[in-house]
């Protein structure tokens, strides 16, 4: 059965994030009156994903290396995109990610006050990746580089849970149609299944957010439709966990979201018992 390999310290899996750093990311995010740039939304998205991945692997004694993680930026150049002490590294154990953010900011978070209302709480928000927006969108080059990194990773980890690639972009590839290279990437496989490619489309359009669609009908433009078409289907075990988490994810749903966050993908991963009342 595919996608059933245990994720453990002796048999870790891998996350590779591809981050659009093109000039178009200077444009406002989400339409309407928003003055927030897409590049800032993308930086928040990747930092939040890394934060959630670290927290998922954190135990009393420290962070367990269930994952190796890389961040490839694509814009003015294509290559490793960590800020701070991790700059220049492509694959990093998750415990190193945990211990080496470039800096830690404080942000306000609304939390349940236990009396039916919301209270504001200060939380730490680690930053590994800063917003960048320059030049074109060489998505094909980024996918090609991902293919090279993951071919080597799979050769070293042939029985691991397959790598997950998360591409965060506004969708407008400037170095050609990414369909072919995306297919080559998702044709890579461990004994447990093919590489999964999930896409987060961060758009200037004000359309409603879309999460894990199983058809392209409700997607607003050709860019989102293209990204949907190259996204992997969610494996059935992820759909089962999504259903246990109360999410409506139908058969054939793909790992694609439009102007929404992909943090739930991390909740769909099984590294052991996760209480269903944990929020």
């Amino acid at each position, binding site marked *: 059965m595919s996608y059933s390999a*245990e994720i*453990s*310290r*002796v048999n870790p899996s891998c996350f590779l994030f591809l981050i659009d750093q093109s000039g178009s990311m200077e444009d406002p995010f989400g339409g309407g009156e928003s003055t927030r740039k897409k590049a800032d939304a993308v930086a928040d998205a990747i930092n939040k994903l890394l934060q959630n991945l*670290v*927290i*998922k692997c*954190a*135990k*009393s*004694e420290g*962070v367990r290396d269930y994952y190796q993680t890389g961040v490839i930026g694509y814009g003015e150049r294509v290559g490793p995109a960590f800020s701070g002490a991790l700059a220049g590294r492509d694959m990093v154990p998750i415990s190193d990610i*945990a*211990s080496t*953010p470039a800096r*830690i900011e404080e942000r306000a978070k609304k*939390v*349940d006050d*236990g009396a039916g209302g919301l209270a504001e709480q200060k*939380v*730490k928000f*680690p930053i590994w990746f800063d917003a960048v927006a320059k030049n074109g969108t060489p998505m094909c080059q980024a996918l090609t580089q991902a293919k090279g990194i993951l071919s080597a990773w799979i050769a070293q980890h042939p029985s691991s849970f397959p790598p997950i690639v998360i591409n965060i972009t506004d969708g407008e590839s400037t170095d050609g149609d990414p369909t072919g290279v995306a297919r080559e990437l998702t044709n890579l496989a461990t004994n447990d299944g093919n590489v999964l490619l999930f896409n987060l489309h961060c758009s200037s359009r004000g359309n409603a957010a879309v999460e894990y669609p199983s058809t392209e009908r409700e997607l607003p433009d050709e860019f989102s439709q293209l990204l949907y078409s190259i996204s992997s289907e969610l494996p059935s075990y992820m759909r*089962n*966990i999504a259903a*246990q*988490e109360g999410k409506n994810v139908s058969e054939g749903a793909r790992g694609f979201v439009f102007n929404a966050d992909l943090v739930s993908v991390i909740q769909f991963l*099984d*590294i*052991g*018992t*996760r*209480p*269903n*009342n*944990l*929020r």
Partner: protein
Amino acid sequence: MHIHAQPFWVQKFGNSREEYEDAHWPRRRIDRKASHFRFAVADGATETSFSALWARLLIWAYQRADLPAEDVSHALSGYQKMWSDHVGKKPLPWFAEEKVRQGAFSSILGLSLSETSESTARGDWQSIAVGDSCLCQVRNDSLVASFPLESAAEFNSRPTLLSSNPQVRVEESQIQERKGEWESGDSFFLMTDALACWFLEASVRDERPWEILCGFDGQGEPDAFSEWVQQLRQGGAMKNDDVTLVRITVE
């Protein structure tokens, strides 16, 4: 009544013994007369931190008769404070702080045996359960009760659990209670989920899993129980998880 009880446990394969996150009561073998006795197992959730401590606190609360089903939330508050005081003793890195904010989670399964007639050696049992740790009662070579889950199909990796975070309430419907009667010679098996799931599957296949579990004596290093669990894991017949059993026979 005369109680023979023995706990068995083995940590998840790939983890160290210090990373075992279940808890059980009694801690060691007992073989003695009593008119009343409490047993428990708890299973700290992998994806939360400091859950072994929380599982141990829940066991302690139960064996002190301090976890009444009708008022679990109120009863937990003192233990939640103990957990919070303990984990807050020293500064923590950012990710551990976030885990502490979320809280630890654990199942609890408690069994209380009482004697109603000394002359005929029979009595009552009461159990409380939150989560997917299970008890099975065996009489005359038959499974006569299974609580709170009754089939292997009911297990998943997302149970509702008790939290050390006071903001996380458990609905009353998730706190389950069962009462029953025991007779001399009955056996009870208190199990965390991986073993309970195997037990219920084997029962359906008429394999009398209780006979296998009654064959272990806890001797040797590694003991036969640990080796047997590891064989089942390698064969795919048992999930790789912490495994705990409290085996009880009452006469």
